């Protein structure tokens, strides 16, 4: 994260993410969409029933978060990433439909990582526990679907300088695995 960040505008192109490597710091600009557990379940249901999705995943970035309520004068409340693995059962469905980026925290399943490599999608980590800071990068927020889900509704966010780090690139890199290996000192458990 100490390196100069790469600035990327959304939506992302395949070429745009091909240059990214695990560990790269990226600042995102533009529209990203929020979705977490319940919204993913509904999207999967929509796909199964052939109903159009609330937004076309092609080129888009989804942020796994359920923000806290906004104080008056703020576009959004604190909004840090939630554990991405809970979205693992659903993510390949969206990756196959052109999703280019996901923002969350925690490891992804091999199935998701394989879909990412095959179809061209990267997984970004944001630091959970920096929800108040991340909310400052959100300039606009609007619920576009599943309003009844409250914090879990799908929101269209406009972000500026939204800081993330590449966890899984297109080439099999995994920041969590590499970081742990590098700093591991448990000789007996290696």
């Amino acid at each position, binding site marked *: 994260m100490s390196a100069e960040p790469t600035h990327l505008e959304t939506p992302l192109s395949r070429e745009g993410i091909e240059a990214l490597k695990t560990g790269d710091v990226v600042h995102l600009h533009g529209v990203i969409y929020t979705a977490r557990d319940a919204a993913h379940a509904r999207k999967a249901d929509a796909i199964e029933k052939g109903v159009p999705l609330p937004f076309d995943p092609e080129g888009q970035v989804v942020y796994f978060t359920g923000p806290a309520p906004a104080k008056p004068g703020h576009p959004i409340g604190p909004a840090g990433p939630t554990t991405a693995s809970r979205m693992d059962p659903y993510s390949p469905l969206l990756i196959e439909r052109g999703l280019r980026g996901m923002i969350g925290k925690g490891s992804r399943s091999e199935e998701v990582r394989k879909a990412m490599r095959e179809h061209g999608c990267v997984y970004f980590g944001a630091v959970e526990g920096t929800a108040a800071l991340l909310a400052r990068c959100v300039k606009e927020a609007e619920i576009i679907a599943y309003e009844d889900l409250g914090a879990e509704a799908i929101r269209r966010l406009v972000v500026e300088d939204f800081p993330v780090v590449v966890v899984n690139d297109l080439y099999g890199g995994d920041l*969590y695995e590499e970081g742990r290996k590098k700093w591991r000192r448990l000789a007996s458990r290696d």
Partner: protein
Amino acid sequence: MREIETRRVTDAVRDLCIEANTRLPEEHLRALRRALDEEESAIGREVIEKLLENAEVAREECIAFCQDTGYAVFFVELGQEVRFVGGEIGGAIDEGVRRGYEEGYLRKSIVRSPIERTNTGDNTPAIVYYDLVPGDGLKLTMLVKGAGCDNMSALKMFTPAEGVPAMKRFVLETIEEAGPNASPPLTVGIGIGGPFEKAAQLAKKALTRPSGEPNLDPELAKLERELLEEINATGIGPAGYGGIVTALAVHIESFPTHIAAFPVAVNLDCHSHRTASVEL
């Protein structure tokens, strides 16, 4: 008998909800600052710096420092000479949670049932554990428990022969399995002893101890130190990006158990370690 009006409990709970969610405890902030000195990985240090900056912004703006404002868990030490007037204590705590989460712009994260999953809309019910104690005091300790790290917690029933080595292995395995998902640097609550449910409850209660304060029992304090060292040798590091600070503190609570049993529960808390308490 000392009489306490339940509306005082409601007011105190409301304030605790807002305080715990917007201000990290001083001991925890100190532990994070120490971690910043100790961490050798550059990316790990940056994560800790961001956590500290985030805590400052949350405090200044009086907003939650984590969007997962969790389960509202309360440990209540209730003096047996206290009599409540004006309502019942459980309802008073729930009303305080309702008001605190609404007025503090905190997220409502509780669903009515694990199967049906409709949000209760006000973060109730609170999770309340009562301890009846001598005297006429009333102490409420709140723990805001996020689900990401709670999900990575575990309990196992060992045998006396398996003992402490099995316990230590299990704690390490739980943390290795959690990896980045539990949002390190962690506070690790461990409950040993009692029957099944007691161990889990102790593990949760252990999290309410001021960060890094050792157990009064020197043997348990030694185990806490040893486990902390081993956990920090896993390499998981801040946010799981790699480093030498995976946990800030290990707290063990112990309770008598059965001649046939060695229950061990591990409850993980993320870097947003939120506790606050008040005496009425």
